[in-house]
């Protein structure tokens, strides 16, 4: 625990020293003190807080939709062999496509609007969730299904009480991956459509570039890192571990 903190502080000192001694052109790469000032200023005038909120709302909307649709598609893909054979390869192919490639289409379909960004974010997460859920279903130990059949569980009850709980650890892992993909897609979408809708974090970052304000760019990047770490470490990894322990998949 100490090692990364010490290392982190050393990096900050080195960075600040380099900035003050003007080892490089300071306006190209401002020091940490400048970044902190930009952060404080952004928080004081609420611009960064508003941008964060806008981006998070977009993310949650798109990710939530991806989670619902992806889980549904994943279950369909995992339980109906015909569907799997038909759309499986397509889903894999589409997953390799960086979701930002949907942006031109999205702009044509939805205009330079909020919906274009949401669509790109949704497409970023949807297939990751779908594939994780369907893999989770396919990897359910057959003995659970035999036990369920033996006890007469079928139809909706089989899905609700056996298939979904059995695949739940995989669904959580899929959600974690989906979140990461959604986050990247959202930033790409916001960066590439600055004029669209309200100013999210990506657009604020781009505006910083336009104004040659690198400390604002770095301030936004700092917020992005913090949100990423919090979501991954404190939310998804915790949830994942708890589920794995409960399911007896990890040592308690």
């Amino acid at each position: 625990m100490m090692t990364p903190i010490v290392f982190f502080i050393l990096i900050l000192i080195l960075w600040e020293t380099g900035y003050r001694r003007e080892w490089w052109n300071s306006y190209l790469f401002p020091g940490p003190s400048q970044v902190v000032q930009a952060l404080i200023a952004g928080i004081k005038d609420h611009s960064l807080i508003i941008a964060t909120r806008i981006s998070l709302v977009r993310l949650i909307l798109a990710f939530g939709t991806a989670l619902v649709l992806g889980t549904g598609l994943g279950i369909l893909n995992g339980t109906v062999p015909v569907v799997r054979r038909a759309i499986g390869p397509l889903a894999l192919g589409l997953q390799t496509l960086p979701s930002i490639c949907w942006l031109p289409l999205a702009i044509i379909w939805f205009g330079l609007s909020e919906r274009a960004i949401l669509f790109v974010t949704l497409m970023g997460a949807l297939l990751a969730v779908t594939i994780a859920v369907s893999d989770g279903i396919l990897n359910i130990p057959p003995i659970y299904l035999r036990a369920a059949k033996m006890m007469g569980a079928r139809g909706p009850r089989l899905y609700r009480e056996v298939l979904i709980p059995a695949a739940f650890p995989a669904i959580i892992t899929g959600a974690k991956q989906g979140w990461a993909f959604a986050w990247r897609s959202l930033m790409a979408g916001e960066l590439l459509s600055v004029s669209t809708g309200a100013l999210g974090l990506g657009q604020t970052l781009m505006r910083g570039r336009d104004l040659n304000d690198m400390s604002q760019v770095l301030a936004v990047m700092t917020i992005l890192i913090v949100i990423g770490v919090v979501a991954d470490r404190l939310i998804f990894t915790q949830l994942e571990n708890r589920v794995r322990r409960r399911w007896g998949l990890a040592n308690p």
Partner: protein
Amino acid sequence: MGLFTAKPKSEEIEAHERRLALPLAKPAKIRLENVSVRFDTRQGQPAALENVSLAIQPGEFVCLVGPSGCGKSTLLNIIAGLLPAGQGQVYKDDVPITKAGPDRAVIFQEAALFPWLTAVQNVEFALKSVRDKKARRAKALEQLQMVHLSRFADSYPHELSGGMRQRVAIARALALDPDVLLMDEPFAALDAQTRDVLIGEVQRIWLETRKTVIFVTHNVMEAVTLGDRVICMGARPGCIKQELDITLERPRAVEHPDTARFAQRIMANLQDEIAKIVLEESDFVEAERARGRDDDPDRVLYPHTNTMGDGI
């Protein structure tokens, strides 16, 4: 006249006819007729089961023993409705078996409990027909009490030992209140002490409930201790070799000399089967060697040593 000649004779005949009629009057709980099953393997289609016919009476405890590959688990899965019978017919109470159902509870080798449910919740899963939640919980706890696990009702399966998990599986199966209890090598993965305890418990539960039980095992002592009837199966193709009624008093102890005597008789019969497998194996090795492919003699797996306690 007829007083001393005809009457005793007619009584004798009547008794004889009654004995003959008895099995007909009492319909079999489970009946298999000429069941054959083949599985596709790389070696072609060896018969997992060939022309197996079998009738099991209500309340009977039948044990199926035999070497690996004799199709005893396949037979059980067919009765469970988890595998289709390739050819032939399978009936429960003279109704053809087409799919799995709670009337034929299965206890698998691995307990097959749902890891996301606690012990009591696992038992409750089997009690879906009980609508009232409180009544359902009470009934599940009652079942757990029968296998002495009340204290562990709220434990998750991974927090229980192998023997305890298997007991939860037994409680779950009994909660279904099945017509037939199918047990597929339920104690094979347990240590010897735990197994002996569980044999005792299964025997006690059977004496209390008198369910029809079909119990698959490779352990002859286990079969003799538990079964009213032990059916010995042979491999390649899977078929019934011998049936033996175990006429010992219950409850029986695992290490009792009488049990050992019956076990001895079965072992003698299975000896041929084991010899057959060893022979086939060595033929296979010879053939491989002749083709110059076998350079690792350790690869050859001989069947387990032929001790009484540890099965075949």
